[in-house]
């Protein structure tokens, strides 16, 4: 059990870091992908593309062009999960801050900066091994932990190129580290004091990524967005005291497409799909895990005319399914989520929302072979503008 505290002021000057793992699937391959989206997109089962209105999402850089005031967003995401396999169940929980972003109108467009999480690699494991030492049976306990995350810091610029169409481009650098440590402790039946054995390794990630996107409104009814993220090779450089070597991973091109349409006044339907082929990473993995192509899609409904205490409080429902890129050999891993949530406008000046919060609550299940992981996840995003 770990206790960590995060000062918000520190978060503003550092890349977004998950405070703890949220899934046992972080133990496979390069870990569990993290979608750096806000509470609204989460509640709609959306992949961060194709929603109406201004947004500061790294997956939809063009959406920032709709901002008229300087603004920022912070996303917090606690989760509670239980993983079971073969009749055994483990419980865990964690909180991450997957997105911290700000935008500032300048040069006829909007400049942006994002700190985002991409992959979560945290997990721990324990195994017990029977040994015979000095003619006596003893138990060795291997405790392993992996503490890692892949994040990025991105700067970008978005601009309207016509009344209904905007484009955006962000350029970023991957950051983050992964630390691995295996400790073997031996408890003897006599008074022998056996020192623990410790094997550690630490690596730092580096690499670059570019995301380009476009967002437009068709026929005054349908909001459409598309984006693509291209990455250089992701390099993992071992620290000087790490015996294990460096690594390099061929990250896939990520393609996203989304749309939302007004079905009726105040009622919108959204859908999004994303595709990335991670299979080329398989050759770079030491663990024997398989990397697969990933298809993700989701749909959602937003009722935007709901009000609470006279303020706009849109209600949202969503569903999403995603393949997970990494799984043990011969297994497919996937995730299904039902989501719901609402927003609340806290301050508004005319038609411009100055402050609002969006809350999503998701109930999901990840499955790979005999391993099933059920989870609850809350996402709270706070947006402020006009600062």
């Amino acid at each position, binding site marked *: *059990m*770990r*206790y*960590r*505290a*995060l*000062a*918000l*002021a520190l978060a503003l000057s550092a890349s977004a870091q998950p*405070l*703890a*793992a949220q*899934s*046992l699937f972080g*133990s*496979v391959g*390069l870990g569990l992908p993290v979608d750096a989206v806000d509470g609204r997109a989460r509640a709609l089962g959306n992949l961060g593309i194709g929603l109406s209105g201004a947004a500061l999402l790294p997956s939809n850089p063009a959406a920032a062009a709709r901002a008229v005031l300087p603004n920022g967003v912070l996303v917090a995401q*606690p989760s509670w*999960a239980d*993983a079971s396999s*073969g009749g*055994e169940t*483990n419980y*865990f929980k*964690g*909180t991450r801050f997957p997105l911290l972003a700000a935008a500032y109108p300048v040069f006829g467009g909007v400049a942006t900066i994002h700190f985002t999480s991409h992959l979560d*690699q*945290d*997990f*721990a*494991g*324990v*195994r017990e091994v029977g*040994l015979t*030492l*000095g003619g006596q049976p003893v138990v060795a306990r*291997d405790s*392993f*932990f992996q503490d890692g995350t892949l994040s990025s810091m991105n700067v970008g610029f978005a601009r309207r190129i016509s009344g209904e169409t905007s484009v955006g481009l962000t350029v970023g650098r991957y950051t983050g580290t*992964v630390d*691995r440590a*295996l400790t*073997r402790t*031996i408890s003897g039946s006599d008074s*022998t*004091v*056996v*020192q623990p*054995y*410790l*094997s*550690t*390794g630490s690596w730092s990630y580096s690499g670059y990524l570019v995301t380009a996107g476009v967002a437009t409104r068709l026929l005054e009814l349908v909001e459409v967005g598309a984006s693509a993220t291209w990455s250089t090779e992701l390099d993992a450089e071992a620290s000087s005291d*790490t*015996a*294990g*070597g460096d690594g390099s991973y061929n990250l896939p091109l990520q393609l996203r497409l989304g749309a939302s349409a007004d079905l009726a006044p105040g009622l919108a339907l959204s859908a999004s799909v994303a595709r990335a082929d991670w299979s080329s990473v398989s050759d770079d993995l*030491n*663990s024997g895990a398989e990397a697969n192509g990933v298809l993700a899609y989701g749909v959602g409904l937003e009722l935007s005319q709901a009000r609470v205490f006279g303020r706009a409080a849109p209600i949202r429902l969503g569903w999403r399914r995603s393949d997970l890129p990494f799984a*043990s050999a011969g297994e497919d891993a996937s995730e299904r989520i039902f989501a719901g949530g609402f927003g609340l406008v806290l301050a508004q000046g005319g038609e411009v929302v100055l402050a609002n919060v969006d809350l999503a609550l998701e109930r999901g299940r990840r499955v790979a072979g005999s391993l099933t992981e059920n989870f609850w996840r809350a996402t709270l995003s706070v947006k402020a503008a006009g600062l």
Partner: protein
Amino acid sequence: MAAVACQEQSPTALDDSSLPDEPLTLEVELPWSQFGSNLQVLGGYSSAAGLPLPLVTRAYLGALEARTLMRFDTFPPGVRVVVDGVTVTDTDVTYVAAFLSVGFDTVRSVAPGPVALEIGGLQEEWQARSASWSFAIDTVGDQRAWSGGAGATVPTSSSVTWDPAFADSVTFPLDSATIATWIDPADRTRGANMLTTTDGALLVLNRASLRLAIRSSLADSIVEDTIGLLDRTVIYDPPPAAPAGMRVGGVPAWRSLLEVIPPQLVGPPELCAALGCPFTPEAGQISYAAVRLTTQTSEAAYQPFDTLRIDARSVLSPAALPKSPLGNSQTSGLGAAVPPEAFGSAPGVSVELPITTFMRTLLGGPDASGNPPPGTLAVLSASEPSSLPFASFDGPGDPGEPVLRMILTVGTSQVLP
């Protein structure tokens, strides 16, 4: 400034399929020839004046004779008496009688029956830290033999018989002439020699004090006062013979020093299969290391009558031996407890001294300043001095020569997922 605090529980794998390969833990034992060299046994550390409990013996185990020399603290300069209702200090006093009270550790003592004890006043200058059976003073440039003969022989001033069945202490009545010789605090001849004349007795003293009867010149009364010891030491005979094998403890204390060579392993087969041989372990791969010694019977006069605690420390400056400073205790200062019979009637007991920290330091190479790690190990008593008897162990070439036992854990390096 806003702050967020979270309580976290990392996900724990349900099986070990996602864990790194198991490290290999194995046990190896190396004979002396593969890890040790240059055994030295050095004596002369500490003094009998520092023995926690002094003792007197006669022909103990047929050989050992020991006497306890005592020097009492300064006599009180006066007494406080009440004269005409006023309390005054009277310095014009007369010491009319004295009684030396001595208590015995009845658990550690060996008494074949009633034990005859004698005490006599010393009549020449003596020094507690250097006095021995033959010499009253034995320092560099000043060596003086006892004038009355070896063993600080002096005329008997008082004698008593202690019967362990009835009491745990005795009291020697002392005459005023003896007391008079102990009054002057500047007199360096002050002292008493306590001995036993009962063969086979070994009495361990746990307290001694002098009870004085003092008469005041101002009041018709006798006042009692008690003073303790200023110095004490034990003199004994015969001196121990030259060591055979390893010797630890005694008074002055013995230490056994051995040079430890970083071991090169050529087995066991599973180690060689995994990492190749010869294999020199790294510091972090030493999960446990210990020197295993085998007890042998100490010479008759010096066989322990109580548990001995054996420690091991690194020798920080071998070039400065025998006066090299020592490193920290490898046994947290407690030492390995060895029962007395292991050095007497039941030799051949294995005693394991953990030296894990020593071995890790040795295999870790030079420190940050480039200083080589200590490679010499001192095996010594956990406290010096602890007892007159000493511990004896088989040395190199003996059937129970020292063995280095190690538990190694070796594994492959951590690699990226």
